[in-house]
């Protein structure tokens, strides 16, 4: 019996080997600029089990038995290609994709294509094609990736004055934002009024709201993976835009044709130039700028590398009064090497530094508050596709952190807390097509964070926050190690051609903690690292979901409408908040300020989309609740987290009026944000003091807003094309709550009044762009 079984296994393997003797592989690239198209889909027509996605470098590989096939290649914003091919052994087939003007007119922001939604094992993913982003309503005529993502279910804006976003009850600082693989901290201009990332140089944007592949880690809420274009290997080009407050240009072109290309992109606001013309504000500094540059080099068929640089700065100041500035400096080098058609290795080295300065210089008072969050990382990711059913990622990342939580100079006296940490992570992840209907992405990440010496560490009294003992460790000494095993699993079962069900579980951890100044993130928020006192934050998330497409046979549309719905439950460990009575500046020592506990977030999301026709768009709804429990706060009772929003609705509509005109509208509704309202008042030293018996016991009024935009595409000239973009942010002028203050009011009977402060009424904008 045993021999029979062995025989059967050998025969089966021989058959399998014979079946997959052939391999089809190649590169998918933009026919115009020859930039590669990662995540483009390649599949055998009519065979749902025989398909794959292009990798980060636009390369794909498909195991097929020798024979004739009809191969399809699809990518959002490009015309679908169908090619007849005869596969014999190793066969190369490249796709030069033409942009689809028709499709561009129809699709604006589109999460995964319907095919991906139904078949990809990874759930809770929103992928944004930047080509499709460009007609979203936008403030100041600039399209904003982050604001567009905030129209997806489960993703919300922190406030009107923040570039931060919250995913499924997480904080903005719990999102990992990467630009070409490098971590970016607190990006955003003019307090989030202006987009952090220049949309013209972005290639694709992927947001993992829940289970993320094991390659990603270091944050507990989500991963926002942003990649920029390579440049243009074929011809020189670019565009320029002039807006009311800022202008920009992008240039790209070949240095060595089809080998070496570059792009450089820069933006600067010029409100300060107008201010200089006014007598009152001529000594005011107010500007931001950012620069992106990248050089990409195709070394051969099997090697590719790029060097990229990102620098941004926001600077506001008034002479003889004060200043606030912040910025990012990021340098990244990446080398991709393909060993064979099954195996490749991506090596990424980056340095990312965020810094903020806030100063005041009045009369005899001179104060400077500095902060820094720097990271140097090396990441190795080996991808191996042993057969058409498995795609494995194995790798490690080593990151060195240098975080200044406080560097305060107060009238010449300097206090500083600078801490260091080393984080090493190993992972393995497999994307497995188990059967024709069932697929899964599963993996394990092992994270070890070493708290490093070189700065004092303290034993802290848990109740009072007082320092009991101080420990001084030599630079480089390991103070403590924290290990986290992080399993990741996401599975998809396709019920039929139009429906699938999904389930996922993931665990993640975070060792960079942000000490938020108020309910919205600020550029001057302090950052600190896990220490002997502060433990790593963790999150365990479970999700189940259902996805379906509805065909319109009359119009021959397979996915005229699509529906996605998910339920999630997230359990959070070592949730961090301020100790009672303390705030950002009470102590230099960050550990003294903070207490930790647990949290939970759960919710239901649904999104219904219309995918084709002149009118496209979607309606999404999220019902959710997020709470925290920390022994030292709120008498140990659970309280609503600041990020809690009960209901959230987004309605997005895009309409192609004519060849020249596109219009769009987006309406957003969010339940009010939880905040603490006093329950009593009293007087001490002649001043009114409020007593807060319950934390976050109240909600601000609801937030809702309508944004409109219209784009007029000018005539296509031989070498250039112009475009006018008109926008109206908050079209019906709703005064949404930004903050609520309590004021003494001697005229009222109670002596107290609550005042809501709103930032915006409606904001019109106009921008002229020229593309060459």
């Amino acid at each position, binding site marked *: 019996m045993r021999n029979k079984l062995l025989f059967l296994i050998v025969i089966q393997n021989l058959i399998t080997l014979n079946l997959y003797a052939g391999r089809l592989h190649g590169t998918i690239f933009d026919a115009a600029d020859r930039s590669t198209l990662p995540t483009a889909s390649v599949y055998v027509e009519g065979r749902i089990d025989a398909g794959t996605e292009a990798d980060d470098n636009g390369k794909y590989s498909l195991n097929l038995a020798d024979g004739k096939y009809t191969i399809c290649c699809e990518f959002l914003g490009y015309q679908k290609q169908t090619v007849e091919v005869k596969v014999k052994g190793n066969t190369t087939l490249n796709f030069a994709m033409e942009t689809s003007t028709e499709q561009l007119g129809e699709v604006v922001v589109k999460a995964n294509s319907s095919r991906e939604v139904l078949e990809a094992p990874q759930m809770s993913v929103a992928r944004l094609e930047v080509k499709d982003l460009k007609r979203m309503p936008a403030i100041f005529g600039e399209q904003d990736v982050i604001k567009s993502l905030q129209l997806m279910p489960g993703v919300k804006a922190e406030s009107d*004055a923040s570039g931060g976003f919250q995913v499924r009850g997480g904080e903005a600082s719990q999102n990992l934002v990467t630009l070409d693989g490098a971590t970016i901290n607190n990006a955003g201009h*003019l*307090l989030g*009024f202006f987009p952090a990332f220049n949309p013209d140089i972005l290639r694709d944007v992927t947001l993992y709201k829940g289970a993320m592949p094991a390659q990603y880690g270091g944050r507990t809420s989500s991963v926002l993976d942003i990649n920029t274009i390579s440049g243009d290997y074929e011809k020189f080009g670019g565009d320029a835009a002039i807006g009311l*407050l800022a202008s920009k240009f992008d240039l790209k072109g070949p240095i060595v044709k089809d080998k070496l290309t570059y792009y450089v992109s820069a933006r600067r606001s010029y*409100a300060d130039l107008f201010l200089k013309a006014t*007598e009152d*504000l*001529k*000594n005011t500094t107010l500007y931001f700028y950012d620069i992106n540059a990248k050089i990409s080099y195709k070394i051969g068929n099997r090697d590719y590398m790029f060097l990229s640089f990102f620098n941004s700065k926001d600077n506001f100041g*008034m002479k003889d*009064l004060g200043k*606030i500035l912040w910025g990012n400096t990021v340098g990244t080098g990446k080398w991709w090497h393909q060993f064979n058609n099954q195996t490749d290795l991506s090596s990424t080295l980056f340095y990312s530094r965020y810094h903020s300065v*806030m100063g*005041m210089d*009045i*009369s*005899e*008072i001179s104060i400077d508050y500095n902060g820094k969050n720097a990271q140097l990382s090396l990441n190795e990711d080996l991808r191996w596709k042993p057969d058409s059913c498995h795609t494995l990622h194995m790798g490690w990342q080593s990151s060195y952190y240098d975080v200044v939580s406080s560097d305060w100079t*107060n009238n*010449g006296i300097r206090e500083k807390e600078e801490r260091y940490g080393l984080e090493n992570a190993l992972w393995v992840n497999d994307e497995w097509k188990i059967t024709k209907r069932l697929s899964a992405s599963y993996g394990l990440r092992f994270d070890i964070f070493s708290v490093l010496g070189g700065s004092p560490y303290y034993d802290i009294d848990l109740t009072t926050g007082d320092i009991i003992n101080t420990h001084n460790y030599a630079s480089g000494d390991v103070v403590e190690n924290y290990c986290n095993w992080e399993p990741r699993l996401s599975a998809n079962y396709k019920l039929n051609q139009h429906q699938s069900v999904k389930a996922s579980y993931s665990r993640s951890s975070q060792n960079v903690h942000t000490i938020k*100044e108020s309910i919205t993130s600020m550029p001057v928020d302090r950052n600190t690292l896990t220490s002997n006192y502060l433990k790593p934050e963790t999150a365990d998330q479970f999700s189940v979901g259902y996805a379906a497409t509805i065909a319109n046979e009359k119009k021959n549309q397979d996915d005229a409408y699509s529906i996605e719905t998910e339920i999630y439950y997230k359990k959070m460990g070592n949730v961090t908040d301020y100790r*009672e*009575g*303390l*705030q*950002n*500046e*009470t102590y230099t020592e960050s550990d003294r300020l903070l207490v930790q506990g647990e949290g939970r977030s759960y919710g239901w999301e649904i999104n219904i989309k219309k995918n084709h026709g002149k009118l496209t768009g979607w309606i999404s709804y999220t019902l959710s609740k997020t709470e925290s429990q920390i022994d030292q706060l709120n008498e140990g009772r659970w309280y609503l987290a600041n990020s809690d929003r009960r209901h959230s609705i987004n309605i997005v509509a895009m309409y192609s009026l004519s060849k020249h005109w596109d219009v769009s509208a987006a309406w957003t509704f969010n339940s009010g944000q939880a905040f*603490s309202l*006093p*329950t*009593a*008042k*009293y*007087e*001490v*030293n*002649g*001043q009114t*003091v*409020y*007593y*807060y*018996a*319950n934390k976050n016991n109240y909600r601000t009024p609801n937030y809702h807003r309508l944004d409109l935009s219209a784009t007029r595409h000018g005539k296509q000239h031989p070498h250039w094309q112009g475009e006018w973009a008109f926008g109206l942010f908050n079209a019906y002028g709703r*005064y949404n709550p*930004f903050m*609520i*203050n309590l004021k003494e009011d001697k005229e009222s009977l*109670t*002596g107290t009044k*609550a005042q*809501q*402060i709103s*930032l*915006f*009424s*409606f*904001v019109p904008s106009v921008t002229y762009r020229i593309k060459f």
Partner: protein
Amino acid sequence: MFDMNTKFINIILGLATLLTLGSCKKTLELDYDTVPRKLVIEGSVSNEEIKVFVTRTSNMTDTLDKTPVTTAQIEITGSDGYDEFLEAGEDGYYYSPKQAIGKAGVTYTLKLTENDTVCTAQSTMPNPIELDSAVFSWLPIMSDIEIRICNIYWKDPADESNYYLLNLYRNGELFKSNINDDSGMTGEVANMMLSIMSRNEWEDAEKKKKAGDDKIKEDIIYNGDTLVFDVRAIDLPTYLYYNSMSYNESSAINPTSNIKGDGCLGVFSAYYSSKRNMIYRGE
């Protein structure tokens, strides 16, 4: 004091106004929770007197009730052997029957009993200080804006960390209050700056007053107003109380009180006070 949160919020509001059609403020009607009223203690042992004032918290929808609670039993003891029960005076304050005063370096303990409520607090009186001078000046901050500032100076006791509370009274009413510590100043002259008012608003208010307008603006110091500067050397727990009190509303936090016991709020402070009076003459 430098309230970073408030300053930053102001910058945001300024930006919003500059960049858009303007920010907006409106009054909200809120439905406040209510809780049982708590005792509020404001106790002091100073180089001038021992004085405790006890009230109760008020609901948010009521007027601030300052009716004194005069039925409490209050005992003050000192690490130097001082021990006395205070007696309620006609003005509702509790005073030392022996008219005792505090001594520098002595740790005082307050014990309050009122029905079932028992609260205790401790505070140590710092070393003496002496207020030296208060200097007013106009500070130009933009081309046509000038701010009246007042720098107050006193001698800072050497070789120790010191913490201060400054109260400026205008015609008997508290006008401004501020705290600081002596980092960088030990053994030299300590200084605190108060921002008073803008020149435009002051000139406008003076004009109206001369024109016979009786309405006194609360945020203006007029020529002829009587000012009292009261600098108090306080201990660290009291400093932390006032520090957190300054963020009470903006950060929605309860001040870190040195009073222990359920049902009691407030602060107990042993402090050394130095005062100066002046009649304001602006120009």
